[in-house]
């Protein structure tokens, strides 16, 4: 049940993010190169980089739990062992998040140009 609740919550967060993302990026691309570059400079803010990290976490959770749902729904994989499958996809998510953390850390804690 918790997997499902988190799936919904992360999904709704991503829906909200998606439309903000479309509007902000499109707005930037439609106005001028300078406007878009200024936007990207603004995103260099450590707090926004941290939010970006949280966003990647939500994407990874939702995406990989989604993979598990598809595997079970469509292919009947591991319906009896869905908990093992859950932890397996979460291990993949944690690995990818760790990779992103290494890339993002300098932007959150300083040290990136």
């Amino acid at each position, binding site marked *: 049940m918790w997997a499902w609740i988190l799936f919904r919550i992360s999904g709704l967060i991503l829906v909200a993010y998606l439309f903000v993302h479309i509007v902000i*990026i499109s707005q930037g*691309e439609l106005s001028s190169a300078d406007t*878009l570059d200024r936007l990207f400079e603004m995103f260099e803010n450590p707090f926004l980089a941290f939010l970006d990290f949280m966003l990647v976490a939500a994407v990874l959770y939702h995406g990989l739990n989604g993979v598990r749902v598809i595997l079970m729904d469509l292919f009947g994989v591991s319906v009896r062992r869905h908990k093992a499958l859950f932890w397996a996809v979460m291990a993949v998510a944690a690995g990818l998040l760790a990779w*992103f953390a290494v890339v993002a850390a300098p932007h959150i804690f300083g040290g990136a140009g």
Partner: protein
Amino acid sequence: MRFVPADIERLDRQKGGMWLWLAQRVSAVILLFGLLTHLIATHIFSIGELSYDNIAERLQSGFFITVDILLLASAVFHALNGARMVLLDYFFKDLARRRLLDWALFVFGVAAFAYGLWALWPWITT
């Protein structure tokens, strides 16, 4: 209330049934590959270095512009259909209101897609 198979089938059809369910899966798979491309391109290779020129150069490539358009369409669909499923679980029990919700989401989705497409237009036409 006790459901018989016909009731369940009718309720399913009102919620979109098999096709929306399948489309949600198909768009999910597109998103997996599209987002992977999108995130690796923006968050791994060019983190801290994103700029208009940088993006313009990437969008010159037929591959990236195709991925972007596919990503935009499937993300908008997947997001709104997902939000609809959540909403229908708690609200909009009334059929007329549900129809209204469906139209509102549809119009909103088409508008969001068109807006994103408009921003990509210079690279679509070149």
